[in-house]
């Protein structure tokens, strides 16, 4: 019989039509399918409650789906969860480090529970603390760490046993911008070293920077899939936003810019800007020609909101508010 995992080509992670209902009618997953090729990064992008964490929990053996198939590093997660656990690293949504233990003790514990020899666990802990710039804090209890340091320690804990496949569930949620950028650097280094990574995020910017491919998930379904530029292409690139004094004035501006497919929402006019600054210049000329003074004028790249607007016809937060509890 072929050795599972080793030597097999094909995707490092496969999810096929995963379905999961909590209780009677909370449908967390309604047929999630995705694939991650070895050595690449998949960003699972979606708002709160979209099913990101549930998907990760199924793939990391924490949760059994009602139906579907999941394979990680060549191991069927549902048939042989124990073997799957030997091949994955997970850093969950909360930095699951023991705050009473020191950085070294945390990593040594995970090493021992991964059945490494005590000495190997110690060497590996030192190595990881060094790699994640935590050596100076190695002997301090994790409760004295900053949010960014805790996340780095949590990430290090997921890497103790050198798993071929790594799962990161919202690795930077709750971090300040500086720590977030620091953590991105760490993750990029891991990926350069060949780790296969599935990461969930609420931020397009994060998926954009870290992921080779992005799956957009909403209401337990993958609603779009592709590279970052492919997804952006479907959004029609940047948008020029003009804010006016009143909704009436906004409607007037929208009519003036109707040729450019402008849309209006209250006192805000959005103009797709496929040709970048030329659209901006055109908008300024139109406003000037009509003698209208805008309160604000900005050109911006598509955001997660825009992805959702375009994919679901609703902004993610508006959508959530309309969801019955």
């Amino acid at each position: 019989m072929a050795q599972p995992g080793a030597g097999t080509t094909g995707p490092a992670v496969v999810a096929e039509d995963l379905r999961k209902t909590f209780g009677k009618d909370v449908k967390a997953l309604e047929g999630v399918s995705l694939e991650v090729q070895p050595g690449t990064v998949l960003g699972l992008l979606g708002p709160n409650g979209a099913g990101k964490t549930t998907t990760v929990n199924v793939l990391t053996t924490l949760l059994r789906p009602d139906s579907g198939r999941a394979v990680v590093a060549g191991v069927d997660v549902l048939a042989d969860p124990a073997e799957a656990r030997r091949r994955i690293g997970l850093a969950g949504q909360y930095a699951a480090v023991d705050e009473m233990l020191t950085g070294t003790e945390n990593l040594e514990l995970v090493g021992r529970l991964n059945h490494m020899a005590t000495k190997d666990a110690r060497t590996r802990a030192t190595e990881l603390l060094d790699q994640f710039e935590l050596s100076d804090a190695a002997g301090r209890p994790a409760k004295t760490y900053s949010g960014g340091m805790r996340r780095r320690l949590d990430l290090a804990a997921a890497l103790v046993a050198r798993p071929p496949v790594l799962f990161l569930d919202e690795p930077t949620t709750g971090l300040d911008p500086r720590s977030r950028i620091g953590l991105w650097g760490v993750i990029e280094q891991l990926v350069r070293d060949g780790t296969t990574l599935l990461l969930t995020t609420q931020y397009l910017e994060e998926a954009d920077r870290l992921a080779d491919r992005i799956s957009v998930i909403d209401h337990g379904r993958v609603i779009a899939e592709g590279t970052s530029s492919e997804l952006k292409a479907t959004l029609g690139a940047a948008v020029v936003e003009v804010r006016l004094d009143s909704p009436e004035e906004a409607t007037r501006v929208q009519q003036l810019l109707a040729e450019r497919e402008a849309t209006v929402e209250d006192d805000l006019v959005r103009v797709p800007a496929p040709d970048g600054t030329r659209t901006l210049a055109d908008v300024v000329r139109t406003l000037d020609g009509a003698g209208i003074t805008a309160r604000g004028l900005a050109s911006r790249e598509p955001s997660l909101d825009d992805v959702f607007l375009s994919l679901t016809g609703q902004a993610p937060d508006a959508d959530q508010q309309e969801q019955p509890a």
Partner: protein
Amino acid sequence: MSTTTSTSKAGGSGSSLVWALKDTQAMATRNLRRLMRQPEQVVFNLVSPLMFVLLFRYVFGGAIQGLEGINYVNYLIPGIAVQTVLFSAGVTGFALADDMQKGFVDRLRSLPMSRSAVFGGRVYADSINNAVGLLVLLATGFAVGFRPENFLGLLLACVLLLVFALAVSLGYALIGLTVRSAEAVNAATFPIIFPLTFASSAFVPVATMPDWLQGFATHQPVSVVINAARSLILGDSATAAQREVLLGGSDTTSLVLQSLAWTLGIAVIFGLLCTRKYRALGR
């Protein structure tokens, strides 16, 4: 089917029992480290039984009747010993709920470790904590005049109490797994332990209670265990009257067997429920 892997992770299925023990040891070490780094919790666990000893020995003790000639401090210490281990047993549920709440249990569940080690390591560490608490209590007891008739009996009584506490701690583990909030487990400790220790033979002879309470107070498990401990400590010195009035008319062997039956029953029921609950986390 091959279980060899090319990664650095070792551990074949043949040695799973060895790994389960090693995992339990690793978890117990972690739990004890945590405990030692929360001195305020340790101090609280030790101080409250000491307060009870002083309160009952010097404030209420003089008014307690019906002791059939037993010195009250000798009557009191086994009762407070049971109360102490019962309160400490709550730590099991409290700590487990805390680990659930903070996502630590999910990390453990994603590791190739033995599942039973999560409970094993918990109960192992908490039993050591409990044993230390019992030692401190006994030392205090000696300082205020406690003099056991039978030292071997005292030792056996301590073992009996620790095993009983272990069974009860599985009940707390179940609460911890269910409510997943350390505060809620803490809040649940009091209403469970309070009636069981006060409507028992812990502080006053059951014969001094109203009739309607005596039936419960004599036969509920906490009283049975206290009576067994007392009987072991009194040894042959117990008079027929003391045995009849204070120990429910049973001899040492019968009390110890009853205690072990309760302990085993509680351990099996809650052990099974905990296992089921833990498995259900993945559903």
